[in-house]
Each structure stands twice: as C-alpha cells, then as structure tokens.
C-alpha cells in the first residue's frame, strides 16, 4: 500500500468483499450505506451492466451522489424506471426477478436467520425496540442470492435470535426448501472481521476468510456459538490502491460510511 492511499480500513475491506458478490447483469436490491458503496464500486469495476433496484420503487438508478436513504431523490433523477412500491415487491421480488439482495441485521444466527425486530425475550416488553421488518423478509425469501453485511460481536452473532424477522437457511439442511421459500437463500455474510459462506449440506455458517490483521481467535471471541471454520480458510482479499482511491475520492469523499 503506498502512502497516497493508506491501508484499507475494515469498512473498506467489507465494501470490497461485498462488491465481489455482484455479478454483471445482476438485478440487485440495494440498501443504503455499505451495500450501496459496494454496488457503486461493482458498477465501475466488473459489473457495468448490473441494475440497481431500491424497494422505494426505483429500477436502474444512477445516483450522482451518495444516497442518504433508499428513497433519496438522487436515485430517481436519471433512473430507468420508477414503479409504485407495491409493484416493486410484487413484480421484482415475489415475481422472481431479483438476483442479489443485501441485508443487515441486529442479530444473526448460524443459519443466517436475522432479527431486526426486538432485543430481549419478551416481544411485548422489549429491551430494545429495533426498526422491524421493512423489506428484508421479502428480499430474503425471493432473491436468488442474499448477502448479509454486519459488524460482528457476541451480541450480534447469537446462538439464538430473540425474534426471527427474516428467514435465512431456517433450521439448516433442507428446512428452508421444505417451507417453500422460492429464493436461493443466504450466500455470504460479510463482517468487519471476516467473510462467511454456508455449508452446502448443513447450511451452517462457515468462516471462509479473515480480514488482514484479524486473528481466528478474535473471530471466535466475537461469535456466540462454536464457529465452523472452512478447511481452506484464507485471508480476505484487500482492495488495491485504485479501488481505494475510487472509494475514498469519488464514492464517499466525506467518509460518511467508511469511517470505521
């Protein structure tokens, strides 16, 4: 890494890892924040023909600034199509037209099920009231692949969710298929410590790579269950200088999302 750029932060490594999940031509359901940066980066690198969809009703967005929310006006100006919100869900998600969706979570379990509803055992008297479901259950149910992006610690990576807002691989194995979920299920989890896949048989989350400077011990410490580790565990690929420049100078010059 040369002096001009400076070493990549963990957020930048996350964005770059997420970016690699985007394939050219994909219809991608994007959220704000890191997923948005990841897709913007993919558009400029290897996936110039991917389509950005926002549940607010935008298809083919071409934002000229960093959107603050999934309904930012910059997503509309210059987009290919604006749809009623219901049709975005009906036609793009439930209709099976979505290749990739990004999700976040307050809690995640070993099968990639997510909680964004409440923290605490009693729904009626929650310790923390979280935002709720939004569009996540439908992205998770219908997209051909989903990728979860979250910072990792023991309160987040839990043995047991307080509430299951969004289904991943359900109870693992074939249980997701058995409930008739049409989409392809979670493909990756990307955190500030490492990148995870899911075992093709058990569907359990499996650590595939750790970020530069992170130890396996640190990852285990930050996981609330006995973590499965890939036999071919490697180091997460870091973005090169050109990519960092793109991220820092063009996509998020004010370091809104790339702080940490």
């Amino acid at each position, binding site marked *: 890494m040369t002096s001009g750029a400076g070493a990549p932060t963990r957020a930048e490594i996350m964005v770059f890892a997420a970016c690699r999940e985007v394939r050219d031509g994909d219809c991608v359901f994007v959220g704000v924040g890191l997923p948005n940066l990841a897709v913007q980066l993919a558009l400029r690198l290897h996936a110039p023909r991917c389509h950005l969809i926002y549940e607010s009703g935008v*298809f083919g967005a071409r934002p*000229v600034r960093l959107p603050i929310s999934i309904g930012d*006006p*910059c997503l509309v100006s*210059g987009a290919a*199509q604006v749809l009623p919100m219901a*049709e975005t869900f009906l*036609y793009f998600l439930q*209709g099976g037209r979505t290749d990739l969706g990004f999700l976040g979570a307050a809690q995640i379990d070993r099968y990639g099920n997510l909680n964004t509803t409440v923290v605490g055992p009693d729904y009626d008297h929650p310790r923390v009231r979280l935002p709720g479901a939004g569009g996540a259950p439908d992205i998770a149910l219908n997209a051909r692949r989903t990728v979860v992006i979250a910072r990792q610690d023991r309160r987040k990576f839990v043995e047991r969710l307080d509430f299951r807002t969004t289904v991943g691989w359900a109870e693992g194995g074939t249980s997701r298929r058995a409930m008739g979920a049409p989409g392809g299920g979670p493909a990756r989890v990307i955190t500030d410590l490492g990148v995870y896949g899911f075992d093709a048989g058990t569907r359990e989350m499996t650590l595939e790579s750790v970020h530069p400077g992170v130890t396996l011990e640190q990852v285990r410490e930050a996981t609330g269950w006995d973590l499965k580790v890939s036999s071919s565990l490697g180091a997460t690929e870091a973005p090169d200088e050109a990519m960092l420049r793109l991220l820092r100078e063009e996509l998020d010059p004010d370091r809104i999302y790339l702080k940490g």
Partner: protein
Amino acid sequence: MQEAVSRFVRDGDTVVLEGFTHLIPFAAGHEIIRQRRRDLALVRLTPDLLMDQMVAAGAARKLIFGWLGNPGVGSLHAVRRAVERAYPGPLEIEEYSHFGLLCRYKAAASGLPFFPLRGYRGTDLPRVNPHLKQVVCPFTGETLDAVSALHADVAIVNAQRADSQGNTQIWGLVGAQREAAFAARRVIVVVEEIVPEDVVRADPNRTQIPSVVVDAVVEEPWSAHPSFVQGYYDRDNAAYLAWDRITRDPAELERYLDEWVHGLPDRAAYLTRLGEVTQDRLRPGPRLAGPVDYGDYR
C-alpha cells in the same frame, strides 16, 4: 422484427398480444403469420382484426380472451366461422371477463399462483371454464372467485418508445402492457422509435417496462396500424370498416393475407403500400404534455 419473431416465438407457444385498442401489435402478428407459426395459443383481452387474421392464417390452435369483436364495427367472422363451424379448422376457446384475464396476468407477474376477485358470481362462465375457481377469505369467510396465473411463453408489447436496452415508455392507454411483460418468459417490445437512453432516463415515471424483462427491442414505425398510437397516429377506421367486408368472405380474406402479409417482405413494404396520403390523414396535431422538473440532485 423478422429475427425477433424467429428467435422468440415458437410453434405451440402461448403468446400474449396485448394493447387495448391502442398499440395493437399488427406488425409482429403479420410477421408471425409470414413465418407460418402453428398451434399457438393466442392470449388477448380483446381479440380483434389481428386475431381474425391470425386465426384465418392458421396460426392459432386456441384463443384465450375476454371480448372478441371488431370494436365499434361488428363481428370477427373468421373467428366466428372457426368457433361456429370449425372452418377451416377447429379453434379451442377459453373465455374470461376482461377483469378475470387481467387478474391472470397480475397473478403471473406477481409470482402468485392465483388472484382473488369478485367477478363471476351469478354468471354462467364458471360452467364453461374450469379454470374459474373459488377461494374463501381467511378473515371474513366470504367466498370469492379466483383465477390462476397465466405464464405465457412470449409477450409482444408495442409502445411509443424505448431505449436500446428495452426500457419502454408508453403514454395514453397503458392497458395491461406492464403486467403482460412481467408475466411472460420472453418479451418482444416493438416501438415507434428507439431513443437514446437519456430520453428515457429523463422521465423514469413514464417507463412501463424495465429492460430486465425485455429480450428484444424492435423499431418499427406504424407497427400498430390500423390501430392507433397515442400522439403518433389515429385509428384507421376505414380499415376497420373494410375488414367487416373482407372477413365475411374467406376467399377475400385469403386475398387480403396474400396481398398485405405473405406478399410483402416486411413492414416497410406494408407502409409503402399503405401510402403517404393515408399516413398523413392519420397524423394528429400536437398536444404536448407540459414540462415537469425532476430536479438535479448533487
């Protein structure tokens, strides 16, 4: 057009040809006739002149529809001969109300296996169409009607304009164009004009169909004649009136197909034959939509 039909329309396909009075895909239908496609199940809310021609040409084994006729004029005699007397061959029919067929498109576009509606109570339609069923509301206990999703093999959708990727804009009657496109496995869009991407992206609310569901974009001016295209040309009512005479006589209908379809290589030749005078007569004066500002957000 030749290539699009040849690649995406196959014998035996279920083909949705939409466009409600407006944007009827005559050019595409003629190309299907010209390429002698067979055994098609043709789906359309309002089978009209084009369906009469396709049935007479022997392209169809089945018609799935809501209302059939020559709108404002009378009957489709080729279709009637096929249904009433199996002439020149039998034609299977499967009929709905407009609303029922719209709900079939909606269900398929939405990834739902069925769509609930109140629409067939008190009618004899369920007696002759086994695809009309019922469903009970889990909240009120009310029995509603239900139609199944109609997943077509191909939808052919006419529009005013699209970019080369297939982002397609329509104004005036939008009919069921969006639902038909999302409900089909393959989509051919036929437009009066292919425009630069910037034109489409300057007004994203105007886009009916996104590129991602479109397999082919064909630029073919006057492709909806003798039906109309809002802002481009009017319905050629003389042709609708003339059709009433032509379709009554199978021999005359045959001559029409020979002269206007089989005997012409493509739509450009059709246009030449149609003549400038007719085109001029059908062009409306301007009536602009007025400006709208999306704002430049940086």
